[in-house]
């Protein structure tokens, strides 16, 4: 009998012939990702009472959540992390400005097909776009991985989502994943491994695949994945400095469910406040007045996202009264966007350029909202209170829809600008 991707990776990492869903395995992750929460994790690590990490070589620490430090508390937090990094000899440390962890890891060669990655961030699922098994964990267990090098994981049931057809013009992977989450619900894949397949996924860029696996977390998935192919290998060439063995699901694997979508007639989608599965076609909410538009985050801050926005805003200007915030996902993305003139186009159109990082997505700084305000954002969460006031409203959409909305000052179908 065949096995799913999750079953094959976890069996291999646990040193077992085969595993079944529901089984608990103890595994040694290839990589452990932590970010600004490393300060809190280091305290837990000290509570465990070991002096040294079991293997500092698996630890990757990226400062991205509140960078540069917004006040003394954050600054102290960052200092504790820098001291911990030096003390433990963690080589893979990326200080402020390098970018968002989920972009930095693959760029720096820490993500590869078949890798087992755990991270103290719910969007660790992103790395599945490269054929890695990547799952979010909590802070205490991140500290335990530092101390022991191991973690228990429950072998998940798997869903296979097959995407047929070709995405229409200005309809993007973000619209597709919002549509899927709207259809399956915020717990539609709870505890599950989600495999994204089909010709529309094969056609997609690496950046597009990362949108799918990033937002798999928003339907409760343990991990999301796309099978590695020539695009994956080409993207990783020159970044991953060692051989790797790809893991592909067996054709006769057993899935909890196989779900098919056809994207040929898909229209731009928007998640309305205050849940990610509250999804509607853009046409239903078009005309909603906005105060702020955000392009960036670990979901949609990559070069093709900024390019899509520039394609709409080049030579034009955003509407009066609208604040457009642009945050490239990494230094590499920012540099490429500068070289191609994309940054100049966006800034000339009225955008406020912010440094690579998570920015206002989690409501800590760089663009929080006042009561009654509305933001349309390319991020992955629109929960009440997430970006400042609990009386503010967040709509989620693609970079094209956000740019089109910034242009008109109201939620706008990007196919009409």
């Amino acid at each position, binding site marked *: 009998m065949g096995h799913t991707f999750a079953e094959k990776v976890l069996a291999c990492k646990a040193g077992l012939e085969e595993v079944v869903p529901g089984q608990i395995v103890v595994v040694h992750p290839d990589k452990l990702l932590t970010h600004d929460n490393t300060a*809190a994790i280091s305290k837990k690590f000290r509570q465990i009472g070991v002096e040294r990490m079991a293997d500092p070589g698996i630890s990757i620490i990226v400062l991205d959540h509140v960078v540069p430090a917004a006040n003394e508390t954050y600054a102290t937090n960052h200092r504790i992390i820098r001291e911990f990094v030096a003390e433990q000899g963690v080589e893979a440390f990326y200080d402020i400005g390098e970018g968002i962890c989920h972009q930095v890891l693959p760029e720096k060669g820490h993500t590869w097909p078949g890798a087992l990655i755990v991270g103290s961030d719910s969007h660790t699922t992103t790395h599945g776009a490269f054929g890695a098994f990547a799952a979010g964990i909590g802070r*205490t267990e991140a500290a335990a991985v530092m*101390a022991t090098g191991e973690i*228990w994981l429950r072998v998940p049931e798997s869903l296979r989502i097959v995407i047929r057809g070709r995405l229409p013009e200005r309809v993007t992977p973000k619209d597709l994943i919002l549509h899927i989450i709207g259809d399956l619900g915020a717990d539609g894949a*709870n505890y599950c491994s989600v495999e994204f397949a089909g010709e529309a996924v094969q056609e997609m860029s690496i950046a597009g695949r990362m949108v799918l696996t990033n937002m798999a977390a928003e339907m409760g998935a343990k991990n999301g994945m796309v099978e590695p192919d020539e695009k994956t290998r080409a993207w990783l060439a020159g970044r991953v400095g060692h051989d790797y063995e790809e893991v592909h699901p067996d054709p006769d694997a057993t899935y909890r469910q196989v779900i098919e979508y056809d994207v040929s007639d898909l229209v731009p989608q928007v998640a309305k406040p205050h849940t990610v*599965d509250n999804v509607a076609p853009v046409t239903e909410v078009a005309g909603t007045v906005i105060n702020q538009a955000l392009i960036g985050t670990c979901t949609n801050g990559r070069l093709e996202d900024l390019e899509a926005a520039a394609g709409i805003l080049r030579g034009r200007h955003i509407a009066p009264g609208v604040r457009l915030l642009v945050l490239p996902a990494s230094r590499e993305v920012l540099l490429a966007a500068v070289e191609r003139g994309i940054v100049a186009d966006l800034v000339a159109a009225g955008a406020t350029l912010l440094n690579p990082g998570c920015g206002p997505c*989690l409501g*800590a700084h760089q663009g929080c909202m006042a009561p009654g305000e509305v933001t349309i954002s390319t991020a992955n*969460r629109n929960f009440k209170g997430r970006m400042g006031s609990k009386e503010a409203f967040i709509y989620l959409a693609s970079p094209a829809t956000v740019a089109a909305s910034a242009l008109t000052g109201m939620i706008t179908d990007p196919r009409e600008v």
Partner: protein
Amino acid sequence: METRITGRVWKYGDDVNTDVIFPGKYTYSISDPKEMAQHALEDLDPSFTEQVRPGDIIVAGKNWGCGSSREQAVTCLKEAGVGAIVARSFARIYFRNCINQALPIVVCDAVDGVESGEEITIDFAEGTVTTPRGVYTFPPPAPEVMEILEAGGLIPYVRKKLGIE
């Protein structure tokens, strides 16, 4: 771990996310668990922190704790005195965080049998939740999970395993 607990219920709905349990704006600015407890559920139910008593039990619908991996969304409730959380289902990282902090969790449909302010009894040995309008059963945790709960959470569990005392 107590094998049987009785407590007053705070009842909530489906898909309660970690941003309303513990707002993101505090995630890197508050590190004292007691201070975390003062903000528990503030964007969902401002009356909670004013009226919660030690031993109270949260009973909810499906997908409790979805969203961010932030462990403070467990810490703040535990520190506020919550004795257990009973839900139709939990988001997976939240589920792990509860085990790792030894906050008892139960997966069953008890939300159908109780209203806020009423009492329920959870019997972990029997695997039952007794509500005013019915008894609900739940499967026992996996042995690996039980070991962590019995040790008092992941940190004491790992200390024991590594032979640190």
